[in-house]
């Protein structure tokens, strides 16, 4: 297995007087795709945002290839974040920039690449997510699925070591979910290390190395999908997934 590429160690976080994360630990090896499931408000989003220190955890640390985020300090935390790609539920594309420039802007401003090189890289990444012909369009001119794929291209352009995905398909129309999941599956196949919060249990079942069930700020169960999601096990996770499948049809 080797050393883990990402280690989350005993993270706790209180927001607005409420304990959102309670001593959460997990680790990812290179090439892992792990899935976070659990009821809304269970702390999945907050955990992802604590991992790249968009929220500063009150306690605990995150190690990326052995380098501690805490030790980098507030001044250098941007360098740490650069190494971790993040995908949001509502895309968060930059509305004033074309798809191409959405991908290129961080290459230029953070990695200080010249404009031409950054745009070339942007074209390559957009082609990779199947949007080679949409580079000149603004976010408002793209469908939800296309927007999410641009945001994936934007994260990939920074050559992240790990990707965090926060319910990447939850804001999409049902018929657009497939195109985004396909991109994520391809990424996983190409060896990208990913941690994804999702309600797409069917997807999780087939592709993930581990399913992590979170509730009330804690990881309550974790294991390979075949084991954890087996209805006969009567685990809390299997129960939760059965309810989801009932609601959304088996997928």
């Amino acid at each position, binding site marked *: 297995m080797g050393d883990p590429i990402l280690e989350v160690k005993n993270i706790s976080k209180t927001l607005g007087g409420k304990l959102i994360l309670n001593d959460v630990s997990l680790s990812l090896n290179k090439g892992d795709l792990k899935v976070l499931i659990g009821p809304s408000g269970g702390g999945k989003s907050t955990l992802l945002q604590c991992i790249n220190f968009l929220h500063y955890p009150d306690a605990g640390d995150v190690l990326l290839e052995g380098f501690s985020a805490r030790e980098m300090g507030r001044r250098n935390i941007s360098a740490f974040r*650069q190494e971790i790609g993040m995908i949001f539920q509502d895309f968060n594309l930059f*509305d004033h920039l074309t798809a191409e420039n959405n991908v290129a802007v961080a290459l230029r401003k953070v990695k200080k690449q010249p404009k031409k090189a950054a745009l070339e890289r942007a074209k390559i990444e957009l082609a990779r997510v199947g949007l080679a012909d949409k580079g000149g369009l603004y976010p408002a001119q793209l469908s939800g699925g296309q927007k999410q794929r641009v945001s994936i291209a934007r994260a990939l352009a920074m050559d992240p070591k790990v990707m965090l995905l926060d319910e990447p398909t939850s804001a999409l129309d049902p018929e657009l979910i497939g195109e985004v999941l396909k991109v994520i599956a391809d990424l996983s196949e190409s060896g990208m290390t990913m941690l994804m919060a999702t309600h797409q249990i069917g997807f999780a079942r087939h592709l993930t190395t581990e399913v992590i069930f979170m509730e009330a700020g804690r990881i309550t169960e974790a294991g390979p999908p075949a084991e954890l999601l087996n209805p006969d096990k009567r685990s809390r996770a299997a129960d939760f997934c059965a309810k989801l499948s009932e609601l959304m049809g088996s997928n």
Partner: protein
Amino acid sequence: MNSLSTLSLSSFFSTGPFTWDTVTFFLGGMGLTCLLIIGALSLGLVLGLAMASFQVYGPRWSGLLVSLYVWFFRGVPILVLMFLFYFGLASQLESLIQSWLRSGLPAPLKSLLRFCFGARGSVSPFACAVLVLGLCSAAYQSQIFRGAMKSIPSGQFMAAKALGMSSFQAVRVIILPQVLRISIPAWSNEYSILLKDSGIAFVIGTMETMARFKAVASSTYYYLSMYILAGLAYFVITWIGVRLLLALYDRVRVPGLAEVQSADIL
């Protein structure tokens, strides 16, 4: 300034108010008004953007300082501020600027000070008017920009940081270009209000539009026609400026951002 006005005044005294001399006299005033409000709006823009950024993205104490500033300039009449700065604070301001010019300030800052206040660092009525109008406009502009900033989904700021940008970079590269686009219509309002407020600068001796029409009116007794003309002069500057700003708004408009066309605004 005074020698200029007496010179021109004496020449049209004998020939009535509508000679070539008076026309250039008035046009010069309008030019000075334009300079006055370009200076004040620029000062207000820089300060206003900074204050709005602090209010929306900065620590809580900085937001409180900004609202204190805004309340002061919102609450005190411009006329009072003009008197306060020109008769109350100008000499203190002058000695402050002169000590800055002698100190080890970085060269670009010094040349900016020399550009604004002359080599000797004296606070002319014009410089004082720019300062008062600019500080006042900064208060109003900060609230225009604050509203625009709050209308931009906070997720974009987060996404920028997740890509490795610092907060400052995220504001400058991602937030401000959107804020400025959205703000142009409201900003054109601030332009037209400030333009008309700038007429108050005549009370401290700035020879801008209002001062010149008043001077001619009281020396020729053509009060009615002079003040109608003064109103017209301000109207023309307002109209041209607002049209230019709306043309700019249309030019930089991006699909999905500031969707409304300028034709629907005015």
